[in-house]
């Protein structure tokens, strides 16, 4: 293990070469902007830069592509906080509290916190990647369909805390999300489901389309013109444009739990950073002393998901570097990059290309520091966005959304879809249906469906296998405890109250 740190030191030196440094900066800045652009996320960013990057030398190419990946995680939060539009899918949970904070005049504090959370999440993810990449990779593959099913049941039980006041409306929203998640080619049979004869729905609906429409466009449709008028804005103080160190330190618990959750969910093949942010947010709310503040501008609600998505990025790279397995769309493209520069990803990469791997890891550390510097300088400038009148701001933003969504697949159809989801989001807002359960259903539902169906195909329909895996059993028991304990507590409180009442009589 100590060898790792020596190797990393060599890697840091190698990554400080001017050409690699230049590649890191180019990648980080492109990533930052692509992350901030609604619709385009890290996968699109890495894909856009890939054909250009492979013309650099090998190390610079992968350093630049990696920088796009983690740069996008920083950038996604910017649009989420300032405009209420998730810049990329994994920034969706950041919208909930981040945008409320910006609206309350705390844009600077929220942005500063998101930068700190991104950095801390990234650093914890990186340290774990450096120290335990190979060991963790072995542990991660212990998660098969059975364990994944249990984990998703656990996640859904956590997110029940996110539903809002009206349980029925939350459930309807959740099921709508589950339904949307089933659109496209059936993962097990291959037949199209709910495609309405439309071939462009074969691959399902891109999550960013739903997130941008449901949160971003809906918010803009519903904004009355009075909000953000200069006279109202003038009560925001200049100081609030800047990051707030004290507020950041107060969130240390959420930063820690978010980073760890993000990292471990990120490692699992097929789970992804967005699922990680949801679980991190739900966990933070569930364990908070003031859960009622979540959803109304809680700093912790920004810290947890932002730490999680950055940490998940590194967790995600572990199966790729250690085993040659791409665990997500972004790492699949990144692995394409490795192949194009002539490296063979696989279990031997650490041995055969040791210098390369450690230089890349070194470049990640440098890139994270660079991103903190860039984003801190940009924060006060970006935060002034919150003062621009919607009538000036929104047309430009809508154009950027159209451009970003079009950029995913060069598809006008998807631009129409995002407008449609904007209308759906507007209706849900007016009728008081919470949008968060919908996105949860859409992200977690497909993972749960695949887990259950893969398990049942392999077991010939025998349900008992879910209880034969020790990992799954432990997760299911924890879920049971989490679901039952609030009820037991309330029962006991009621009984005590009854007893107290009887005595009083």
């Amino acid at each position, binding site marked *: 293990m100590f060898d790792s740190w020596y190797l990393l030191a060599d890697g840091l030196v190698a990554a400080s070469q001017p050409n690699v440094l230049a590649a890191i900066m180019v990648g980080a800045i492109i990533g930052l902007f692509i992350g901030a652009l609604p619709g385009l996320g890290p996968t699109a960013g890495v894909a856009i830069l890939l054909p250009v990057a492979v013309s650099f030398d090998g190390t610079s190419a992968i350093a630049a592509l990696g920088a796009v990946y983690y740069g996008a995680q920083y950038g996604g939060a910017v649009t989420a906080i300032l405009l209420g539009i998730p810049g990329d899918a994994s920034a969706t949970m950041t919208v909930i509290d981040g945008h409320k904070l910006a609206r309350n005049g705390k844009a600077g504090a929220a942005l500063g916190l998101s930068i700190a959370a991104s950095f801390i999440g990234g650093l914890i993810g990186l340290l774990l990647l450096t120290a335990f990449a190979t060991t963790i990779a072995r542990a991660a*593959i212990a998660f098969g*369909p059975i364990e994944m099913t249990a984990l998703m049941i656990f996640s859904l039980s956590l997110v029940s805390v996110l539903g809002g006041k009206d349980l029925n409306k939350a459930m309807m929203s959740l099921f709508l999300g589950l339904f949307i998640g089933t659109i496209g080619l059936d*993962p097990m*049979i291959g037949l199209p489901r709910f495609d309405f004869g439309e071939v462009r729905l074969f*691959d399902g609906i891109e999550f960013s389309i739903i997130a941008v429409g449901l949160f971003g466009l809906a918010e803009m449709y519903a904004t009355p013109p009075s909000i953000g008028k200069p006279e109202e804005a003038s009560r925001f103080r200049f100081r609030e444009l800047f990051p707030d160190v004290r507020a950041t330190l107060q969130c240390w618990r959420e930063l820690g739990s978010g980073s760890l959750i993000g990292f471990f969910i990120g490692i699992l093949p097929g789970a992804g950073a967005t699922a990680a942010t949801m679980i991190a947010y739900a966990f933070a709310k569930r364990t908070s002393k003031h859960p009622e503040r979540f959803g109304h501008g809680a700093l912790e609600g920004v810290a947890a998901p932002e730490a999680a998505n950055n940490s998940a990025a590194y967790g995600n790279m572990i199966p790729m570097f250690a085993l040659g397995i791409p665990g997500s769309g972004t790492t699949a493209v*990144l692995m394409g990059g490795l192949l194009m520069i002539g490296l063979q990803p696989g279990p*031997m990469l650490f041995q055969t290309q040791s210098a390369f791997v450690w230089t890349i890891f070194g470049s990640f550390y440098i890139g994270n520091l660079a991103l903190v510097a860039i984003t801190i300088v940009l924060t006060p400038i970006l935060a002034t966005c919150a003062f621009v009148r919607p009538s000036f701001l*929104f047309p430009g933003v809508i154009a950027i959304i159209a451009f970003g969504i079009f950029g995913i697949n060069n598809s006008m159809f998807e631009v129409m879809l995002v407008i449609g989801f904007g209308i759906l989001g507007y209706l849900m807002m007016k009728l008081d249906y919470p949008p968060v359960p919908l996105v949860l259903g859409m992200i977690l539902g497909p993972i749960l469906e695949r887990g259950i169906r893969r398990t049942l*195909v392999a077991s010939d329909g025998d349900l008992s296998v879910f209880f034969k895996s020790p990992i799954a059993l432990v997760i299911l028991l924890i879920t049971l405890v989490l679901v039952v304990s609030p009820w037991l507590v309330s029962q006991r409180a009621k009984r005590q109250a009854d007893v107290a009442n009887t005595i009083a009589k």
Partner: protein
Amino acid sequence: MEKHEARKGMKRRMLLACGAVLLVMQPMLGSVARADDYPNKTMNYIVAFGVGGGSDIIARTMVKVIDEKKLIPVKMLVENRPGGSGAIGYSFINSQKGDPYYLGGVGVSFFTTPLLGKMPLSYRDFTPLAAIARSPYILAVTADSDIKSIDDIKKATGLTIGTAGAVSDPALLSHLLNKETGATIKVVPYDGEGEVMAAVLGKHLDLLFGNPNEILEQVNAGAMRALAVTSAERMTSLPDVPSFSELGYDIVHTQLRGIIMPKDVPAEAVSYWEGILKTVAESPEWRTQYVDRFNEIPIFLDSKAFEAEIAATSARYETLMRELGLIK
């Protein structure tokens, strides 16, 4: 009231913005060239999938080799048009009917998406040019598995095999394996090759059909054992692993790396590209940058031979999809 007005204004502006975007994005129409000075403008290679995938890598490597060797007098661009399981990209190529400035590659969805009946096209709506490499599949298990040969598979019960996609080459091969050996291996579809590999290494699945590229790395690392290959002959990189056909099973199926054009292009364009692609296939650059790197089998099939293989492959998929009940 004021609120309502503003919202209406917003919507109007939205519509205007969308109209503007629509105008800008008008697709550009290609024109048909005369045959004598062909090619005289930029060639477009349309990849029906995203950047960084197998179809994309082969396209970009081929274009790079053509560039390095200066085989054509014009530029060649690679453009990704993903979506609809390949339907978007292939429909686009098809819409350039008669235009010999558009090329595309053949992937699994080239066959399966039309067969599902959701794309009003088939392989007959394209012009085959040539195939420049061939990729067999390798049946493999983890190194510590009890399964050491195809005979062990026949004896074992309750085996599972993972496939990348419900309708794919590994799925086709898995069903063929059951049919040919009489085994009852359960076929479990996953979303990608990486997920299948993770599930096999994590012992959630017993078997997989993988690309030489991914399997050889695991075999060399001592993590996996190869049981048989699906090419007619043994692979040079795995001299000890038998092919299915030498073991007496009728399982021969490889992925062809071939290039197509829209329908009704001039015959001159076809013979022109046959020549270029033959030079590519036989060049040392192609060998080192693609064939050897991905452990594929070097071949060259001209348009006639390639066309015959396309028809055979499509028929194989049609049979599989009928047996799976996907088409009637």
